[in-house]
């Protein structure tokens, strides 16, 4: 459990989640949500949660895949 939720991975996932949310808002959703402040806040919070979780899964997956290219992967 501790390995799964290590602090570095959580911080990285949070930062990535923020980046994904901002990119999504600017490229896809800005025109629809900016008219109403509360809608904007709610949609942003929802996106942050979704993209944060996606980022967490992605960080785990990428880390595992990267290890396959590392020198230790060649040891039998």
């Amino acid at each position, binding site marked *: 459990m501790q390995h799964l939720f290590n602090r570095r991975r959580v911080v990285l996932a949070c930062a990535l989640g923020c980046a994904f949310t901002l990119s999504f808002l600017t490229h896809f959703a800005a025109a629809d949500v*900016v008219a109403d402040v509360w809608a904007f806040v709610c949609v942003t919070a929802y996106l942050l949660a979704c993209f944060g979780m996606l980022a967490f899964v992605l960080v785990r997956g990428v880390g595992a895949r990267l290890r396959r290219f590392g*020198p230790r*992967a060649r040891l039998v």
Partner: protein
Amino acid sequence: MDRARASSRLGVPLLGALTPLAIPTVPPPVWLWDGEVTLTPLNARHPAAQGSEVWLLRARNGEQLLPLAAFEHDGSWVGRDAGELVAPSGVTAPVRWRGWVHGALTLELLMHPWSGRVQVRVGERVEELDLYAETARAYTLRLTPPPSPAVRVTQGVLWLADVVSGGVLLTATLLFLATRSPEASREARAASPLLLRWSVLPGVLVWTVALLVFFPGLMSSDSVDQWRQLLRGQYHDAHPAAHTLTMWLITRVWLSPAAVALVQIGMLALAFGIAVRELALAGVGRGVQGLLIGVFALSPVNAMMVITLWKDIWYAIAMLFLFGMLLRVWRTDGAWLSAWQAQVGFGVALAALALCRHNGAPVALLTLPALLLVGRTSRLRQVVAIGSIALALFVAVKGGVYRLVDVQPVPAWFSRQMLLHHLGAYVVEGRLEDSEAALAAGFRSLEEWRRYYSCYNATRLLYASGRNFAFFDVHIADFTALWLRLVVRDPMVLVRHQVCLTSLIWRVTMPEDGYIATWPHKLIWEGGRDIGLAPASMVPDVQRAVMAWLTTLERRELVWLVWRPALPLYLTVFSVAVVCVRHRSWRPAGLAAPTAANSLVWMLLLTVQDARFQYGVYVISLLAIGLLFIPSRRGNEAGESISGDRRELEGPSEQAAGVEQGAPQEAPASPRI
């Protein structure tokens, strides 16, 4: 730190930094601002204008239409039947609007021969516009307040977010795809000429229906000019005469544009079928093959291009043949290249590339060395033999056939169109000294240089009335020296011009002020009526419906996906990168050679925004997706196994390497990356 981690630390920021270039970060919207806009007619006009009117056609507040009745004036502006607001010639009284703006305030003004100059003031910012145009069209003015420091900071944050998102997502996708192991097709070895037939049929069927809908084919002014040449038997090389002569040869059987379109359909289908068969032999499954066949046959771009009488179509077909043959060389580790059929095939394809378009020769030259990279057992003498065959064919056609039918060479100005386009940028930015300006004025007046220059398109600069090609041809050395002097003195002008111009190649989304030319919307250019060329659809009702659908595909929100060639370019590069990483080898990188060479050459020679220039890149990209489904061959590579993940990384690829009879069965010792 291991190499993989170091590569990812370098690769993520690099891919991330490239993302906002291909898909620029949207500027942060100014959501609400107190807008005050004033339009003041200046009662001044362009020398060619017949009046100084100012027409306000429409206004929008954000996405909402703004009634023009909300604009205040002293009564000298006149309301017209369709709701437009017009300041007749001689009026100088302003029209004003003030209120809260959601996002941007958009004004549509009319440009036509009776329009004059107008001053537009937004807050403290003042801009003057000349609305004169030879033919009527709307001019859209999008007004937003100047960005404040807070907006600039927001823009920086959004850009950074795009860099991070793009970098991480692209790297993650590449890693996931490169480390998965697609199931090798059991039918790989059984891929037979029958497959070739099945992969060819859907395309032939769909495109023949398209030909009937747009009978007898599509022809632009270029195509009509070539048709006129083949009817008269008098040829010039402005449109490569090799292509015109090919059309002449085809029309000996049936003198109709449809005959040429039918041959194009057959050739494209054949090139596609060969490439699909190669993918099948490399282990791509039947499901993926079916998907590729379906997408290729149903692509609206293919349907419209293959029935258009353009040299670009033959050029694209030659590129696709090259891609298919490169794939075969890679699959057989270069063994196939020792066969004489392979050398002749490559030679003919490269010669066709060089003969079908004037930019084709450098593309062929850049593609040729890729053979050494792609095939492990490729030898320099084989590449030299292929180059010799291509050169012999090229010289035989250019020197022999052209002389036989007395082909007129291209005038000097024709091959220096880019130079004139570049000079336009320097004239518009006011970088010419007096003596240099005098030389430029010999081609056309400086006022015309400024009026006709557009960084996206050199057509008006080159062809609008008032130009003097004879003067340019006489002073060609002076113009070349001037161009060189300006480039050395102020290279940034050229850089800005090229960045704008080449956005067709590398930018996924369409620039706000940009455009893209797709298929001939007039079906057959009206200049061909006197030689009997006119549209004659077999099903006019269907044609109308299809044209309406095609028009929707050219809307800004869709055109990047359907027509703009940057996405296909990146798709091919990405697919090839995945194969390289999956196989831990640089060899597959050579598969991208035709795509990369064509894009590189156009980066230097482009003068307009025509999608057809990159049509070859488009057709290859649809097949390059198939590369993602080729199983890894690394199981064959000694000392390369990865114990823990061996099964997942390598899969059942040994038997699926798809080496045909006669091809080497031993492990390829590809250079690792």
